[in-house]
């Protein structure tokens, strides 16, 4: 039986997100030209939450986008096509803006590598930041997050499951298969 450790529950996730929202504004140097882009699937929901939180404190709506990186993966010929390709939609332009990529879990870094390539095909942002709910280590590429909800040490056998209310009916982060070191 794999062990399951609850790392964040409802209220812990809520406070992590509000801290992350503040840090995003801080590190972006304000909200001028700020765009939040969520990576399919759960990054999209997290980006929408963060945009909502920032929009509320700043008193103005924050532009949102979503990115599906399936077609930019580097493993099509080894593991075959991912059959479900999701939607990509970005605000009218990302040229000269500060784009914050939002994802649920940062692991090998390959998803973010693909996201950077895809963003480059849409324009040249002034800056790109990375914001993740969980950084679980295990990087295979030189990529790091600027804003992190929770840092974890994990092994390759572990799985980190993020659930969000919009898709899963609850907010939680669970470590499956091993205990945090």
């Amino acid at each position, binding site marked *: 039986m794999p062990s399951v450790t609850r790392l964040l529950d409802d209220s812990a996730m809520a406070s992590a997100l509000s801290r992350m929202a503040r840090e995003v504004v801080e590190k972006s140097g304000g909200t001028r030209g700020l765009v939040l882009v969520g990576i399919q699937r759960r990054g999209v929901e997290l980006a929408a939450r963060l945009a909502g939180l920032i929009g509320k404190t700043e008193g103005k709506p924050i532009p949102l986008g979503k990115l599906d990186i399936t077609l930019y*993966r580097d493993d*099509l010929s080894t593991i*075959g*096509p991912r*059959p*479900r390709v999701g939607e*990509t939609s970005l605000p009218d332009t990302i040229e000269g803006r500060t784009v914050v990529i939002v994802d649920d879990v940062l692991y090998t870094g390959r998803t973010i590598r693909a996201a950077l*390539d895809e963003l480059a095909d*849409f324009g040249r942002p002034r800056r790109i930041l990375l914001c993740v709910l969980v950084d679980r280590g295990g990087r295979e590429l030189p990529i790091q997050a600027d804003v992190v909800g929770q840092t974890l040490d994990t092994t390759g056998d572990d799985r980190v499951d993020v659930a969000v209310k919009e898709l899963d009916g609850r907010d939680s982060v669970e470590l499956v298969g091993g205990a945090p070191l």
Partner: protein
Amino acid sequence: MTTPSLGKDLIGLEGLSADQIRLILDTAEPFKEVSERAIKKVPALRGKTIVNLFFEPSTRTRISFEFAEKRLSADTVNVATSGSSVSKGETLVDTARNLEAMRIDMVVIRHPSSGAAQFLGDRIGSNVINAGDGKHEHPTQGLLDLLTLRDRFGRIEGLKVAICGDVLHSRVARSNIWGLLKLGAEVALCGPATLIPRELAELGVQIIPRIDDAIAWADALNVLRLQLERMQAGFIPSLREYNRVFGVTRERLDRAGKDVVILHPGPMNRGVEIDSDVADGPHSVILPQVTNGVAVRMAVLYLLAGGAPEWQAS
């Protein structure tokens, strides 16, 4: 949840399950957006080589495949053989084997003989996509028609689609019939008795002899191109006569007193099987069909491209 794969080749819609057809249509959705980007290109098929092997003249299908391939970053080579000089059998296979010896990943083939795509697919390790073989099938055309209907109506199940005109010589008709029936649509055929093969009724399609009755029955008409050489062959008395009896005209549609969506696989003979004010009218989806063609072909290329071709595995 297990996802159906498409296998090695796409030969026809007859050989696909409803789930496989839906997989292609669903995969085509995000590819529509790629063609709307400023940079209309994603790297999904980077490093794949695709040969477009056309033994029959084609403009629209060849260009559509080529755009699909290029927008997925594949490298493409076009081989156009003027139809008559190429003999069947060994020559076809020899051509393909020679191309395969150059380490290609996929072949898109258009050929005047029914069964040519299957024949090729059985003999080479590369993926084969049928871009029209004789009177057999033109699966990507069938798929783009399905996608266009689904866009317009939100569903295929329960739709009434009449396929009008030269069904006898039409691979588009066959692919449409298979695809529509598998996804639960009702299909009728309408046209001169000389051009409607009776045996198709066995597949579960109805035959409506009069175009006015077909229009009254249908939610959508797929108006086939009347191949003009059929007149010399005696299938129809004259083009004018054909237009008078079977032409889809504004007047006929007005008389039906309801909206009927109009599809046509192109190229059109304006004033023969379809009148200009119908082709250019508000219920025509003929140009959306062309746009969807690129997305559907991208989806098929993408879904077939996964995994290594046999010559790499061995």
